[in-house]
């Protein structure tokens, strides 16, 4: 029989001037107040500035590689270019589909795919986390800080590695508690605020007073716990948690957030395609490119700004190499 693309009335002739951007989100999709949203805002900017047309698909929890391949294929068949797989889960699918559609440019966020027509958009979370570590070390009064990860996957471990290095480089005496809320294929740690809260409370009870938390939706629990203890701080991740309406009550305890600006990567890719010079290879968004950064909302970092800037300079200059595994 015929394949599905043949059956579709394929309108793959891309619109003349405008680019058609296909976005395949990971589980959560637009509106996750996290990195999917960040990618979406990059695409939105492209829509506004470059007149791009958007098509968004979102993964289900049960999706396998075949489903991700299907999504990308559907987009490619319909003439979308570039097509961005948001999240490392798309790596395999991008690898397969990009080989079949050599004339389309693909983007992959958080992973590296070796194909001629793929732009691998990666971020140096460890660098941002290093700064978070420096901030924590400077802010702790009890020489005791904590780290909470949602799941012990390598990506989250980058956060841990950078953070730990940042703390130790600033003050080796400081004790660091680390805790993962779930492990392996159980990713409930990203959706369990109660577990985040318990873990944070455990650390606070044992004397920690700054907790860095990279646990998706569970961050709120940890932040709430920190807000309940006088003088304790929480550092969030992914988006500026100080600005999240649901956390408004706990603002006073949100020291900062480690931002990962996926939007820049996505926007850059769309722009390059629009300009007719599609980006390919590895595009690493580091501290220096503002790919990662510490949020300053609330102004709680003002007193240590100098030291943070100094650390940032050293990283940018390559004087400090931040590890990616703890």
């Amino acid at each position: 029989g015929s394949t599905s693309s043949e059956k579709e009335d394929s309108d793959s002739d891309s619109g003349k001037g405008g680019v058609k951007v296909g976005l395949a989100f990971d589980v959560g999709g637009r509106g996750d107040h996290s990195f999917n949203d960040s990618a979406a805002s990059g695409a939105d900017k492209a829509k506004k500035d470059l007149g791009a047309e958007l098509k968004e698909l979102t993964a289900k929890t049960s999706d396998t590689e075949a489903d991700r391949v299907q999504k990308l294929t559907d987009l490619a068949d319909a003439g979308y270019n570039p097509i961005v797989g948001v999240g490392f889960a798309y790596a395999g699918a991008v690898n397969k589909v990009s080989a079949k559609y050599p004339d389309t440019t693909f983007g992959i966020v958080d992973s590296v795919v070796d194909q001629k027509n793929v732009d691998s958009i990666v971020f140096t979370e460890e660098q941002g986390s290093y700064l978070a570590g420096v901030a924590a070390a400077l802010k702790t009064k009890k020489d005791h800080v904590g780290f909470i990860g949602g799941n012990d996957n390598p990506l989250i471990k980058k956060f841990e590695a950078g953070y730990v290095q940042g703390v130790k480089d600033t003050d080796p005496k400081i004790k660091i508690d680390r805790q993962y809320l779930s492990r392996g294929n159980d990713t409930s740690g990203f959706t369990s605020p109660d577990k985040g809260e318990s873990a944070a409370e455990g650390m606070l009870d044992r004397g920690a007073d700054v907790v860095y938390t990279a646990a998706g939706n569970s961050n709120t629990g940890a932040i709430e716990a920190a807000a309940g203890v006088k003088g304790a701080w929480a550092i969030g991740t992914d988006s500026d948690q100080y600005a999240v309406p649901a956390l408004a009550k706990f603002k006073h305890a949100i020291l900062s957030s480690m931002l990962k600006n996926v939007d820049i990567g996505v926007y850059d890719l769309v722009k390059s395609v629009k300009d007719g010079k599609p980006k390919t290879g590895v595009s690493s968004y580091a501290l220096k490119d503002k790919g990662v950064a510490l949020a300053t909302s609330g102004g709680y970092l003002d007193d240590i700004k100098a030291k943070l800037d100094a650390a940032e300079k050293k990283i940018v200059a390559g004087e400090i190499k931040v590890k990616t595994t703890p």
Partner: protein
Amino acid sequence: MTATMTDVPPPAAPKVKGSGGPRSRSTLTRALLYTFFGLLLLSLVRVITDADQLTSAGQIAASLGLAVPIGLAALAGLWSERAGVINIGLEGMMILGTFGAGWLGWQTSPWLGLLCGVGFGVIGGLIHGLATITFGVDHIVSGVAVNLLALGATQYLAKIFFAGGEAQAKGGNPKQSPSSEALPDFSVAGISDGLSSIEKHHWFFVSDLAGILGGLVTHLSVVTIIAALLVVATWWVLWRTSFGLRLRSCGENPIAAESLGVNVYTYKYAAVAISGGLAGLGGAFLALVTSHIYLEGQTGGRGYIGLAAMIFGNWRPGGLAMGAGLFGFSDALQLRNGGTVVHALLLLLFILLLLLAAWKGYRKAWLQSGLSALTAAAVLVWYLTTDEVPSDFVGATPYFVTLLVLSLSAQRLRMPRANGMRYHKGQGK
């Protein structure tokens, strides 16, 4: 000839059993005794290992928070299975509860959200009832279907209700609702502080007791109190009222109940509806107390764990509360403290296994005794040669503990006789 009439009643089965009378009182004293010794042991382990977190107020409070949804799920299971309907669908009913609570919770008040969660759970229960009671579908099969349906329906509804308009503006998306206000919680201020000062001394037993009591009176959510009351109320209703007697009779022998004029369908429906409501409340607790929002995947298999707690508790309210408590305790322990404190549990395990070996030896069950002693030795070696349980295994503590305790005690469990039986009116002969 004439038959010799004997005055003694004919022999019953040659079965010797404790008389039924003072049974209930003795179980209460026994439970208290067990609790006392358990505490003593825990305290001992704490003193030896210096793992002060074992009985700290924070640990207990966290245990309680983690235990409540599991306990409510278990209680839900109890209601349904006491009426003879196996309820694997608890997970789905909890999911419905989280959704209902999140949905109405952010729009109105958390109290209404709580009610709505219960209501959604009841709907789930009734679907299960329709399939099992009216259509006579196998209970496990129907439960699985309810789980699937609840998951699918809430995902769909969440997409419709949370991913657009005002909800989205307030932080909703296809996987979560906007946040709702908090429900009140209580701390008994004076007592909390007093207890925490005692706890700080780390005295043997006394500090442990203070820690535990402290944990029980600090930041106690109103829903936790409701849940505790529900456990007691369940006991009272099921074992002290005629409604409860009728309901239980449907789980023991529905045909006999029918022959005495009990409308079995009514009681089974009532039971699954209450069951669904309780599971929904468990879900609502997750959505309103532990996180203030509905989140997809929030229940995380707690419905199944609740089922385990119920079986663990021998289909009794007190027992399931203990089961949920144990699960909450070990979960809180690993979440709050990681590998070092869980390591202390190894010593506790060693002592328990040693006691078991001694007991089995006393009973002349040499094989079991030997096996227990051997395991005990292995655990001791593990304890002495390491300082920490690998963090990856720490997360599995509650599952492991449950498995262990069940394999030591499962044979004493007795489920309602007609549990899972497909009943339809007039099938009796």
